[in-house]
């Protein structure tokens, strides 16, 4: 029998054919390939969190190979001389070894920590984007709820993660967590004893945290992230308003090749930034803190930034302890438990509260610019400023030290700021939104400022405006605001020619303004430009 020649070029087609014979893939595959995604930079913030999470899984797996979650006391005999002979837990010893005695261990540990910070930071920014643009409205409330849960799971996962090395700083954090747990009415001491397997610190909390950190929480995170991203695919992404864009379509580019290549490149960039930060910027230098001891703490003990708002509000809350009938409700219960409960419940409830107040039960796929919903933007600014005051207060001792301010003044500043700043932020945001709205409408009615000042024969000065459409006899244009950017500079209208390409000399002839594709260059040419008229 003659052996058939293997045709390499035909191989992919043949393989695809074989697969389709078995799984009937042609139609579903094509739907994936040609799925249309809308494009805007702000849609990529959530991706940073997703990519950081992937880096966390990769680096965390490496760390788990070397970390020993045990609270057994040992004498340190590793490479870091200042701590030699000191008694410490195996968890701390193995974290030190990971930093000093494992080749490349330090950079992976620092990548893990930086990726965690980036994960939380991008979640916060992504939540802000979703909130301020109204992307959480029907039909996407479920994804908002999952997103809020993801923040809190990330918060817990991060806190537990930096508790694992069992250094002085993480032990202090655990002590505070234990103190807050004890403050729960009725069951506080029981909760604390369940957490630590007895009186603080016990010898079981690190092993318990370890299994939570490497198995349970990442599993839940992974599942929720899967649902979160899956729902975006099924429900299709929201889009900004604009030409041809409606509630019933998506305008953008296809999943393949454009979307996937951009995402792939962006993933590599996020990964790259994490690697650079891990190599160049030190994070959590546990060897400088020493092992945890109940009587040792240093000034400037700060948690990671995403826990700082909790630490800050605990610092600010006044000493209001309730004692009655022989029972005590400690002051820290209010900020530590009730406060965090509100920080969880209010965001969870927000989409439904807004629905209730605006009576808007419609289905929304178009985003809103923050300026078009001043009340929501104000509420967001209020929440954000509250969070910022809390977070800054979490570092008030550092601020007091660096700026030479009294510590007590910082505390009082935070207490007053917490009450005063959020309402102010609401009012200011509200006014700014109205101002921006008004300016948009002004440009639509009168045109873009050209920067050309003219003088009338009667001596009057005025600025020449470029109307965005044919003006009526009063110089007004009646263009409808459609919820999207209004051009406000002449070069937005293509008044500037594109720059010439080439480093030393132009490599190609300059193109005519406006010939550059994507519809941005629809400027009137030649004599039409003379129609520039006065803005009244």
């Amino acid at each position, binding site marked *: 029998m003659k052996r058939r020649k293997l045709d390499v070029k035909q191989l992919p087609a043949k393989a695809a054919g074989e697969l389709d014979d078995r799984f009937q893939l042609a139609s579903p595959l094509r739907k994936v390939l040609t799925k249309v995604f809308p494009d805007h930079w702000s849609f990529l913030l959530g991706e940073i969190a997703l990519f950081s999470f992937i880096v966390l899984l990769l680096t965390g797996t490496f760390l788990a190979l070397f970390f020993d979650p045990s609270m057994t006391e040992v004498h340190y005999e590793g490479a870091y001389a200042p701590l030699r002979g000191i008694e410490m837990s195996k968890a701390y010893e193995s974290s030190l070894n990971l930093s000093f005695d494992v080749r490349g261990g*330090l950079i992976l540990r620092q990548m893990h920590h930086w990726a965690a910070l980036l994960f939380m930071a991008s979640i916060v920014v992504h939540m802000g984007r979703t909130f301020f643009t109204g992307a959480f409205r029907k039909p996407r409330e479920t994804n908002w709820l999952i997103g809020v849960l993801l923040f809190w799971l990330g918060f817990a996962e991060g806190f537990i993660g930096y508790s694992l090395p069992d250094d002085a700083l993480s032990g202090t954090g655990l002590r505070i967590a234990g103190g807050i747990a004890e403050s729960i009415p009725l069951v506080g*001491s029981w909760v604390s004893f369940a957490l630590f397997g007895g009186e603080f610190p016990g010898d079981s909390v690190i092993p318990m945290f370890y299994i939570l950190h490497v198995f349970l929480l990442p599993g839940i995170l992974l599942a929720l992230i899967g649902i979160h991203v899956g729902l975006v695919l099924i429900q299709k992404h929201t889009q900004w308003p604009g030409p041809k864009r409606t509630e019933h379509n998506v*305008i953008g580019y296809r999943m393949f090749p*454009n979307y996937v290549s951009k995402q792939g490149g962006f993933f590599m960039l996020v990964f790259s930034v994490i690697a650079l930060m891990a190599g*160049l910027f030190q994070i959590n230098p546990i060897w400088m803190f020493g092992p945890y001891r109940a009587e040792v703490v*240093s000034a400037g*003990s700060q948690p990671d930034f995403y826990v700082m708002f909790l630490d800050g509000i605990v610092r600010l809350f006044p000493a209001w302890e309730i004692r009655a009938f022989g029972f005590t409700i400690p002051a820290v219960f209010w900020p530590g438990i009730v406060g965090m409960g509100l920080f969880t419940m209010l965001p969870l409830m927000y989409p439904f509260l807004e629905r209730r107040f605006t009576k808007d039960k419609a289905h929304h796929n178009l985003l809103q610019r923050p300026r078009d919903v001043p009340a929501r933007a104000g509420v967001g600014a209020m929440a954000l400023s509250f969070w910022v005051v809390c977070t800054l207060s979490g570092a008030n001792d550092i601020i007091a030290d660096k700026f030479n301010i009294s*510590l007590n003044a910082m505390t009082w500043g935070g207490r007053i700021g917490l009450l005063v700043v959020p309402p102010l932020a609401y009012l200011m945001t509200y006014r700014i939104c109205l101002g921006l709205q008004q300016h948009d409408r002004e440009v639509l009615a009168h045109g873009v400022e050209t920067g050309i000042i003219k003088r009338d024969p009667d001596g009057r000065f005025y600025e020449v405006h470029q109307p965005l459409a044919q003006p009526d006899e009063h110089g007004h244009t009646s263009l409808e605001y459609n919820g999207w950017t209004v051009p406000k500079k002449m070069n937005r209208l293509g008044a500037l020619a594109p720059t010439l*390409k080439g480093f030393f000399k132009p490599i190609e002839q300059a193109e005519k303004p406006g010939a550059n*594709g994507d519809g941005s260059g629809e400027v009137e040419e030649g004599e039409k430009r003379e129609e520039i008229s006065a803005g009244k």
Partner: protein
Amino acid sequence: MSTDVPSGEEKKDEQAEPLDVLDSGVTRFELVKEALRRDGVEILHYEPRFPIPGTKEEKRVVRTISFFFVLAGLAAFGFIAAYIWWPWEYEFGGADTWSKWYTPVLGALLGIALGGVGIGILTWSKKLLPVEELMQERHDGASDPVERRLTGATLAHIGDETGVARRPMLKRALLFGAAPLGLAALMPIGGLIKDPGDALFTTGFNPKFNGGNPVRLMREDGTLIRPEEISVGGQITAFPAIPGGATLEHADSPTLLIHLREPDAAEARANAYEMNQGSQWENIIAYSKICTHVGCPASLYEQQTNRLLCPCHQSQFHITNNATPIFGPATRALPQLPLGVDEEGYLYATSDYKVAIGPAFWEREKK
């Protein structure tokens, strides 16, 4: 290949008659358009970046992208080489050793390698892939009303078939069977629950840890403390002199011993609460170091103002007035340890702390 790619303005013709997909004369791009049409996608704008292949500008873009990929490859090789051959073993105090650059070198090379690939792909995507704008229908919102009605009827029918509504006894019996089972599933968590007992009310200074005898004070290294060893105005951290007294086994026991100056000591004695009277030994006073707010060590002693500051949340305690909180979130005074000096001249605790040390909890006044 480039022959069947359209040159720009291709959006005009709405095909009047459906395309014969299996016709061999159909171009590939016509097939692609037909596929998009069938998937509800309309092309608004589609144009290759470089309609004329091989222009100077196109070659320039290709060179740029290649540069980033090659740079990434070189950096990745560099990373591998540095990982293997760069001296990495940590030397303490090595100000000018190569090894201290190990992590920065790895980070920089890995960052360049990953970033090179990233920028390469992104440039490729932005500069070489065709400019396209497509419009896809969403088809979201509720299902077709017919489908809804059919599915609703099916569900209701299944409900009827089980007959739960018609046979209430079954419902109740099932509830009785399932609810306790759910509770039973929670029981294994009970393994974590421990009765706090009186653990939060006792510290290592409780005589029960010393065979019923009063407990002496010791330093971290285990040496006992004589009152004259603490200089006036000075302070040291003391632990119960029992086995493991300075370890985390007794994390509730660290105590701050302060030798007050004469006038301050008199003031403290005069201010002492009834509970604290006689707790001071001459001019030496001892307070629990565990902050009554959330348990950090309140350890920053300001000699001039006789204040003790907790660095975690800035609670401040007034040493000469029972260590009452005078600023910050703490609500209760630091408990005072009653001191005495035994016949051998060592400090000891005449009893355990008289109230629970550390953060408050629900039942703390029960004892």
